[in-house]
């Protein structure tokens, strides 16, 4: 492609939405220091910023400034932003389950905490559903709770999960009464062997015999290939 063709998609390039092939071509071209294209890329970045700036105005809450500033303050508290965005209960649950990352870089910690918070909030929503039923499993290890709901699926909260070998993942199974296990999603645990996982979707409680977890290759399996580490019988619902 010539300069004009390339420059026609500089905005998409700067947005990170260009397909690999075109992106590679642009990078190679810019890498050669094309004098005509450098200012065009600058214009593309300007147009992008202008378009992004013209969105409906939404006032942030008052406390947000303080929380942003305290991210870099000397006396910053890791709790400030944790409490900021969820209920106190959700924050406490995170603290119990996940808060072991103090030593990591705060930035990646923030992203992870937010992901965790999202998961915890989803778990709360699941638990608040009136039809949700609880199944406790594991007197030894691992242990935890499985919650089942005919409309919303399966929620697993587990601790003491065995560490995963490299290239392995946990796989959840829904086992029908008298039937073969059905794959119900892949999940990971944190460093402490704790996991919260929701498999969304309708679930026929009457026809379900158990919910189980096995260790499987990264891509998951169609049928369990190892002995389950968790089996939670779903009975009497």
């Amino acid at each position, binding site marked *: 492609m010539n300069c004009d063709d390339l420059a*026609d*998609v500089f*905005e*998409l390039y*700067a*947005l*990170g*939405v*260009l*397909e690999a092939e075109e*992106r590679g071509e642009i990078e190679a071209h810019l890498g050669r220091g094309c004098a005509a294209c450098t*200012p*065009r*890329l*600058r*214009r593309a*970045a*300007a*147009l*992008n*910023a*202008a*378009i*992004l*700036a*013209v*969105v*409906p*105005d*939404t*006032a*942030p*809450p008052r406390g*947000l*400034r303080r*929380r*942003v*500033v305290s*991210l*870099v*303050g*000397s006396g910053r508290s890791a709790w400030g*932003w944790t409490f*900021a*965005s*969820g209920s106190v209960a959700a924050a406490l649950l995170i603290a119990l389950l996940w808060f072991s990352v103090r030593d990591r870089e*705060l*930035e990646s910690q*923030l*992203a992870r905490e*937010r*992901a965790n*918070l*999202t998961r915890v909030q989803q778990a709360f929503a699941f638990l608040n559903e009136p039809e949700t039923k609880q199944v406790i499993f594991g007197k030894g290890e691992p242990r935890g709770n499985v919650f089942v709901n005919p409309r919303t699926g399966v929620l697993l909260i587990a601790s003491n999960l065995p560490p995963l070998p490299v290239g392995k993942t946990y796989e959840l199974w829904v086992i029908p009464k008298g039937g073969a296990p059905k794959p119900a999603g892949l999940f990971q645990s944190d460093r402490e062997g704790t996991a919260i996982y929701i498999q969304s979707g309708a679930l026929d409680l009457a026809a379900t015999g158990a919910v189980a977890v096995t260790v499987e290759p990264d891509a998951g399996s169609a049928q369990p290939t190892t002995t389950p580490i968790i089996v939670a019988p779903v009975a009497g619902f």
Partner: protein
Amino acid sequence: MGAVILSLLFPLLAIALRIAGDGDLARRLKSRDQSAMGEMYDRYGRLAFSLIVRIVRNEGIAEDLVQETFLRVWNRSASFDEEKGALAPWVLAVARNRAIDYVRSLEARQTRNSMELDKLERPGVCAVVDDAFLQVDRVRLLKTAFDKLPPNQRMVLELAYFEGMSQPEMAERMKQPLGTVKTWVRTALRSLREEIGEAVPA
């Protein structure tokens, strides 16, 4: 979708205009001056929050993402060249990318672009723009031009800017041939470039 574009508002421009003096602010960010973080928030916090809310449509999540955005800019400010650019485009790009990354992870869509977004957040790519680029009259022209675009052209830009879709993804979403989508994108961008082209010194 078109209605969203039609409802674009101006108030943020007033904020975007306050970018004079970013050079000094950038120098203080680099020297880890904590007050610079507050000042950067005062200038761009509302803009970043509005943009993120527009993308994730959840103010609680947007609060978290604004914090991530500003921390990211703070942590990477050493690579910012205040001689060459303004902070606003960089902050906007980081905010957009955080928000799109979040939406993708929620939808369990492939996060194949995460690395790529990370790279494109280098201030060298995002902030090579003069302070003057967000002049209010220019952006008014841009908005007018945006509103004049045919609905399909507005739609593809919406999908690229606020949903982070590639052209093949747009084609799938809109159930249109890829070639058609590409034509819409290029035509739309050309129209908008013509409107603000002169506002941006090469």
